[in-house]
């Protein structure tokens, strides 16, 4: 019962433990690796604690200096080094390198944050298709999408938990994050940096379309926004 309740928290539209793309998948995997490592270390420490409580003197085969070196350096250093290298390799893979991704290069969009809404621009659509969508980001599924953020007022943070990590939207800066949705569908996004009284309602939706239909649906969405 307790584990069912606990595991119920792993799902839902904004769960980082239910990844739907490679960036979020890498983050979720790192989290699981760290959790499993932490549990293993906790069990080891509790077992040692139990041993010395139940059988005093059980660890006397190793000198005091030996315990300090083994427990203080020998155990944590390899674990921390392995975790660090793993995290650095994963982090480097997630960066928006110019070489692009599979399935025909990178799609570029801009996310402009302001209190308390998100406006999305599509600079690659070309002339005659200028326009924005409000609180809905349209992307093609299966392709890398570079989202460049900026802000018109205070600091916000762009976050689609099932697709990737967070990136701040800061006035005067234009950082980029690379996302990819493996399958078409709707993905919930939110502002992850407290930005004022309307922060709670500053959510948005990412709509991932089948690649063949992406441009057609995006143009229809832009036309719909214009008509409103």
């Amino acid at each position, binding site marked *: 019962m307790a584990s069912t309740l606990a595991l119920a928290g792993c799902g839902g539209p904004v769960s980082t433990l239910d990844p739907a793309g490679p960036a979020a998948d890498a983050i979720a995997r790192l989290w699981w690796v760290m959790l499993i490592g932490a549990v293993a270390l906790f069990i080891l420490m509790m077992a040692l604690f139990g041993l010395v409580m139940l059988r005093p003197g059980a660890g006397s085969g190793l000198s005091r200096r030996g315990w300090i070196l083994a427990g203080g350096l020998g155990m944590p250093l390899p674990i921390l*080094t392995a975790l*660090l290298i793993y995290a*650095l390799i994963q*982090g*480097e893979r997630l*960066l*928006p*390198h110019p070489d692009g991704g599979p399935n025909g290069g990178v799609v570029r969009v801009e996310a402009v944050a302001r209190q308390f809404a998100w406006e999305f621009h599509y600079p690659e659509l070309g002339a005659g298709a200028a326009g924005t969508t409000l609180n809905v980001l349209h992307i093609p599924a299966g392709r890398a999408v570079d989202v460049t953020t900026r802000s018109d007022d205070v600091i916000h943070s762009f976050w689609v938990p099932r697709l990737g990590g967070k990136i701040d939207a800061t006035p005067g800066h234009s950082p980029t994050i690379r996302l990819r949705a493996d399958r078409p569908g709707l993905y919930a996004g939110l502002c992850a940096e407290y930005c004022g009284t309307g922060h709670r309602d500053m959510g948005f939706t990412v709509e991932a379309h089948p690649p063949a239909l992406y441009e057609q649906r995006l143009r229809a969405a832009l036309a719909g926004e214009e008509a409103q």
Partner: protein
Amino acid sequence: MNRPVPHPTRHLLMIVAGFALWALAFVLLYGTQATGCKAGWHLVEMGPANLLRLVLALLFLLHLGAMLALVRYLRRQVVPMAGPVRFLNRVALFSAWAAIASTLFTFVWLFWLSPCQ
């Protein structure tokens, strides 16, 4: 002839000297990386690297050199000493070695990681 005994405060300061150098390296490397990215130094190719990576590597090596000099100084100091001052100096020496290990562990990645993406 007896040598003048240095004031104990100096030995206490020596305990934090290694990690003070580490902290200085951290601030300088972080600041230089941000400034260099903004100024586009990473786009200036220089042989197999770029200007930003070379500047960061130079800062890293300078700090490493300063820490090794500190270790050398403390090793020379510890020999003629005795009592609590010798103990303080030994702590400072181990602290300096720990700072060198931390510097390598924390900053050596600047030779490999993308600085500005």
